[in-house]
């Protein structure tokens, strides 16, 4: 993929396979693996395997899975992988708030290939998995140091589950003090939506604070929202705009005064590592997304961890089991002895492989290295902000004269007003230069025509320059020939497709079975419509 050294733009065309859905490839009787029958000596000893499953839970007919041989499966997924653009393929600055950093491949060697990790079973006795427990225990010590908190739980399988777990813990904390009227939590519009959704799922009422005209959270609105019904505040800082709440200490003080706890959403803490700590800012709980700041690949909704931390006052409500170290026996063990625990929020010990990857990443960096991560990601962001600000059509709203931390929510509102080319159009055009589409914003859009970028520490000046050059080019195209941009992409797997609303149950199928049913129904519907048309003519 050559790059024009003057314009920094690449000639790019994505692989295009027009791949079938795997179910369409099915050939009845074709097999990937022939599973052997259980040997008589084994079945004699352990009995019939299916007998251990209650009758009501057993399928009467086999599942309708695709029947394909191994080689075709391999080809299929390699084709699909070539039609994607992710962190290891492109300059992935695009997913602001997701911290798409480079994950060194040595992590995979440890987490996915080391037999000590790969071949263990979650039900193995603790004394046989001492190495794994040691890694979990030590990772906890690292995160305690980084955040200032006293205890961590690695059970939550993502940031939202961490927020949910925190809300459950907070309720248990208040209940233990006989304080059962605290039924509300407070969050802000530019906090991550899980700071509203987590507590809501746990049964809390949620009060959201809107940004004022300068993009800040209005401290007076916060004080008006605060009452003896407030259980906790759930706040992301810096917010999604990249702006640090300069009055955060007032929020924390006011909340504590009202008897509420303070939860710091540090899902992406890239700009703060080794610089500030949640505990020092007065917070009672916090969480890190290990799949953001701590280098675990996002894994397409799998393999994530929302590492949840808290102070000693709250720790007794945390999920079980916890990994502890018995100094006498000099052994790690799983501690279930927590009578006030909220219980489990995930099976076994959570996503252990992810913990191993984060541990590896922290070990590679050391304390000084983590600090450097923060410095580099903030510096990269300042550089890119300056460069992007020079591009016609780009607007950066709010907090004039103030720096953003590690990410910025930009806006194409001027480009849209000037040319009719909006953020969705620019996003599609990016694919033609081999870049991942960018993330716009949570909904509803408060900043019009938004796009949110985060050039974390992994990217070089050259990477950022190339990335910015693409935006400059698209802006130029929009002012010269808006139609061209609006009909993009041209070099991607698919061309422009209509953007249906997710709320079209009759048109959208999320499983193959649904697809077949809806297709049949649509065919019937079409036949009826055609009949009607014929009749009217």
């Amino acid at each position: 993929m050559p790059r024009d050294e003057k314009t920094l733009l690449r000639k790019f065309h994505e692989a295009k396979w027009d791949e079938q859905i795997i179910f369409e490839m099915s050939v009845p009787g074709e097999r990937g693996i022939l599973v052997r029958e259980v040997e008589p000596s084994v079945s004699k000893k352990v009995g019939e395997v299916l007998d251990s499953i209650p009758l009501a839970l057993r399928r009467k007919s086999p599942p309708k899975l695709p029947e394909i041989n191994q080689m075709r499966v391999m080809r299929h997924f390699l084709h699909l992988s070539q039609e994607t653009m992710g962190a290891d393929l492109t300059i992935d600055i695009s997913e602001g708030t997701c911290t798409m950093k480079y994950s060194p491949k040595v992590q995979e060697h440890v987490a996915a290939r080391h037999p000590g990790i790969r071949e263990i079973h979650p039900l193995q006795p603790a004394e046989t998995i001492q190495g794994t427990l040691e890694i979990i225990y030590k990772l906890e010590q690292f995160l305690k140091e980084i955040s200032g908190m006293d205890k961590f739980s690695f059970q939550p399988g993502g940031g939202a589950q961490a927020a949910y777990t925190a809300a459950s813990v907070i309720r248990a904390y208040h209940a233990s003090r006989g304080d059962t009227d605290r039924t509300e939590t407070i969050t802000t519009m530019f906090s991550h939506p899980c700071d509203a959704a987590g507590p809501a799922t746990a049964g809390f009422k949620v009060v959201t604070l809107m940004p004022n005209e300068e993009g800040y959270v209005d401290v007076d609105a916060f004080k008006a929202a605060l009452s003896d019904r407030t259980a906790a505040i759930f706040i992301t800082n810096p917010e999604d705009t990249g702006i640090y709440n300069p009055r955060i200490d007032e929020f924390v003080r006011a909340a504590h005064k009202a008897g509420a706890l303070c939860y710091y959403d540090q899902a992406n803490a890239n700009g703060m590592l080794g610089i500030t700590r949640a505990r020092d800012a007065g917070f009672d709980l916090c969480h890190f997304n290990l799949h953001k700041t701590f280098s675990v690949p996002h894994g397409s909704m799998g393999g994530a961890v929302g590492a949840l931390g808290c102070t000693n006052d709250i720790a007794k409500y945390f999920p079980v089991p916890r990994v502890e170290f018995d100094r006498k026996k000099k052994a790690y063990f799983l501690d279930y002895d927590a009578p006030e625990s909220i219980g489990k929020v995930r099976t076994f010990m959570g996503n252990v492989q992810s913990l191993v990857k984060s541990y590896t990443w922290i070990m590679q960096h050391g304390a000084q290295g983590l600090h450097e991560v923060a410095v580099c990601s903030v510096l990269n962001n300042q550089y890119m902000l300056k460069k992007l600000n020079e591009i016609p059509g780009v607007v950066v709203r709010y907090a004039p004269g103030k720096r953003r931390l590690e990410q910025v929510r930009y806006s194409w509102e001027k480009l849209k007003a000037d040319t009719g080319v909006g953020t969705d159009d620019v996003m599609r055009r990016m694919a033609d230069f081999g870049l991942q589409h960018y993330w716009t914003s949570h909904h509803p859009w408060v900043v019009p025509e938004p796009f949110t970028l985060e050039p974390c520490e992994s990217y070089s000046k050259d990477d950022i320059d190339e990335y910015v050059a693409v935006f400059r080019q698209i802006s130029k195209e929009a002012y010269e020939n808006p139609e061209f941009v609006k009909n993009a992409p041209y070099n991607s797997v698919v061309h422009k497709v209509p953007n249906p609303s997710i709320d079209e149950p009759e048109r959208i199928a999320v499983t193959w079975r649904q697809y077949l049913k809806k297709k049949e129904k649509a065919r019937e519907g079409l036949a009826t419509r055609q009949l009607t048309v014929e009749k009217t003519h």
Partner: protein
Amino acid sequence: MGSIVVSNTKKKLGLIVNPVAGIGGRVGLKGSDGASILDEAIQLGAIPESPQRASEALRVLARIKENIDLYCYPFDMGESEARECGFLPIVVGSIQRGHTTSEDTFRAAQEMRDIGTDLLLFAGGDGTARDIYRSVGRTLTVLGIPAGVKMHSAVFALNARNAGEAALTFLTDSDQAYVEEEVMDIDEASFRRGVVAAKLYGYLRVPQAQRYMQSAKSGGFQTEKQVIQGMASELASSIEKDCLSVYGPGTTTRDILAEFGLDKTLLGVDVILGDKIVARDVNEQELLDFLKAKKAKIVVTIIGQQGYIFGRGNQQISPKIIQRVGKDNILVVASKQKLASLQGRPLLVDTGNETVDAELRGYMRVITGYKDYVVYRVN
């Protein structure tokens, strides 16, 4: 997998240009309604904004002109603009050239509806929007190309080009989904004296290409319907059965009550007790009579883009009524999208009574869904 069915049938687009819209703006006359103002503006050398704006929108639509039958009134009410942009318009109706009035707009809109146009584009301001509302109400989907001096109504696109884009999206989209937005206007006579008194006149159907609209809304993960259902559940759990509830005008309050199977008036104030509407479109006196017997709650939503919750379109809920019911019994409902569209500006009250306004000022809890609220500043 999955194919897009493109309709081959031609779309019918109506076009109305109010040739004098915006004429008062540049010469500082705050509007162009009424013949004498018009003469004054022309004498001051004013040039109408609308022809140029209409052309700007049409140029976007010219991309699909082969698929559009464009209907318009003669000369400067649309024909000239259409021809300038390469359309071969079907000209209907007749006007007295150079002397068009609001009645021409009124007649034109009705004809466009009778022809069965898919969409009516109009270039003008609040006055034009009112004429169109008066003429066709909510029986036709329309979209305003902003060209007037006053544009308080939410039926206009952000600018002329975006009006064209929104129209194009609507005409090529199989759904042709629409929303209802406010038609508001201020009394021009008092406006010229420096007094702003906006009034809610009604609602027009506009395309749901909301990102293009001035009060920018965006398609979210939660649909409008889900938000309304959430608010309805919240209200159901916060209003006791034996308590009267006084619902102000607006699509939000109407849609919430529709969730309970109740058919609320769109522009009126209705009174609900238990699961029934006990009075529709009441005035202040009728409300006072109701309040004698029972305790009550007031449910209002934001009217217009400026963010009014009292004093615009719901004047029946007078200061006296508000005082009687009490601030604690006022429930404000609005979606987060609507609040976000205020861009940090406060909610407004203008009841006409300074004491009541002062009482309402400060911070209010707005119901945004089930167990979901925003605490927001009221000014």
